[in-house]
């Protein structure tokens, strides 16, 4: 469904992606994992032509993004980002119906889609449709963000650290919501995160990026066994999460500090 072919991206002298080869198959959730500056968000933004490769090509459903009409392409691809970016001057319903309206759907079809999606993300339309984003909590806003990304019968979803700004409990609920919606709508997705735990929960495959190159690629099980330095550095973050349960001997230096 998505094909990265020797994708390079440079800004001035700075190389952000240095020849990335990657395939995303239908129905899978490919997690792009990496630290800040690894190029994962850049790679994501190449899929909906927010950025174009300076060399190589990104193919979406067989068509290179640099030959596609970016506006038409983006309307087919859902996009969820950490800052949500709801339109503050529009009601929840109008926000969710934004892409269907851009596509010129008739009003009753827009409304059906909005109603269904609001129900699916746990914000019943009777109660939430006419509210404004500023009256919602952070988690509710991101639910609206997810509903908006899916409203135009979207089959391909891009998520850029979507739940990074939420508290741990809400984040877990949102990950569950994402998994439910994924199976119900048969969504293919690319999911950017720097949280390995999240990567394991949502990813069918994990692509670890390092300095604009693919470091490791494989299923979560493969990832646990991979022995590259960067993969082990990420696996140590899980070990660090375990420390409260298994207190480390006092002689051991704190893990993860030397990253």
């Amino acid at each position, binding site marked *: 469904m998505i094909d990265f072919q020797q994708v390079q991206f440079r800004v001035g002298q700075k190389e952000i992606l240095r020849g990335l080869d990657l395939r995303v198959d239908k129905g899978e959730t490919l997690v792009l994992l990496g630290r800040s500056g690894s190029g994962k968000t850049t790679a994501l933004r190449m899929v909906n032509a927010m950025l174009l490769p300076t060399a190589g090509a990104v193919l979406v459903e067989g068509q290179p993004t640099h030959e596609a009409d970016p506006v038409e392409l983006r309307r087919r691809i859902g996009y969820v980002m950490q800052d949500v970016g*709801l339109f*503050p001057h529009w009601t929840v319903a109008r926000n969710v119906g934004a892409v269907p309206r*851009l596509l010129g759907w008739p009003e009753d079809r827009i409304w059906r889609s909005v109603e269904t999606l609001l129900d699916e993300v746990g914000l019943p339309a009777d109660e939430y449709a006419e509210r404004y984003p500023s009256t919602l909590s952070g988690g509710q806003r991101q639910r609206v963000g997810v509903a*908006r990304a899916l409203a135009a019968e979207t089959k391909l979803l891009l998520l850029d650290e979507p739940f990074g700004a939420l508290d741990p409990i809400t984040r877990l609920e949102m990950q569950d919501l994402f998994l439910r919606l994924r199976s119900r709508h048969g969504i293919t997705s690319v999911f950017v995160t720097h949280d390995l735990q999240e990567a394991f929960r949502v990813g069918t495959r994990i692509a670890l990026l390092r300095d604009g190159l693919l470091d490791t690629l494989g299923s979560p099980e493969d990832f646990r066994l991979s022995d590259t330095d960067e993969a082990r550095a990420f696996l140590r973050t899980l070990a660090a999460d375990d420390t409260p349960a298994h207190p480390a001997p006092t002689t051991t230096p704190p893990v993860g500090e030397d990253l």
Partner: protein
Amino acid sequence: MKIPWVEMARLLLEHLQLVGMAMLIACAIALPLGVVAVRSERIRPWALGFANVVQTIPSLAVLGFLIPLAYIGGVGRRSAVVALVLYALLPILRNTVTGILSVDPAVRASAVALGMTERQVLWQVELPLAAPTILSGIHIAAVASIGTATLAAAVGAGGLGVLIFRGISMVNSTLILAGAIPAALLSLVTDRLLRWIEGYFRRYSAR
């Protein structure tokens, strides 16, 4: 002395026409120029710089400069409107630029990511969200213009300044007040009206 009610009413209307026409033209220039200035980092300092420089020239001097000019100047209404337009440019331009630039980058990014065209981003997202700021620029320009327009009488453009100038030359305070009071009241009413409209837009866009 008798108060010249009828003449006052006629001059008030003239005054309104001068200011109204100037505001329309100023908006027609400054709003699109502001949008262009937001998009182009190269044009922005020039546009704002020009408007700033114009603002520093004393208004009476601008009127003086305009009198000998063909097409945009001369004695009469045209010079006065041109001068008022020049003064109104800066607040409208500056607030248009500020208003659009202060739209949350995440909101802009999501508008693009959703598949809005550049034009749709402008009309459906940036301008509605910038509207309160743009309106307050128009507000400032309009209220200031009402005061400045009293000088229009100096180039024979009419308006309430006629009574003020006549009052000065005849050393007649009643006449001066007959021009000044309606001008002040007009400012107040305009101020109130625009404040009310702004409040409406602010409620609607700043939820």
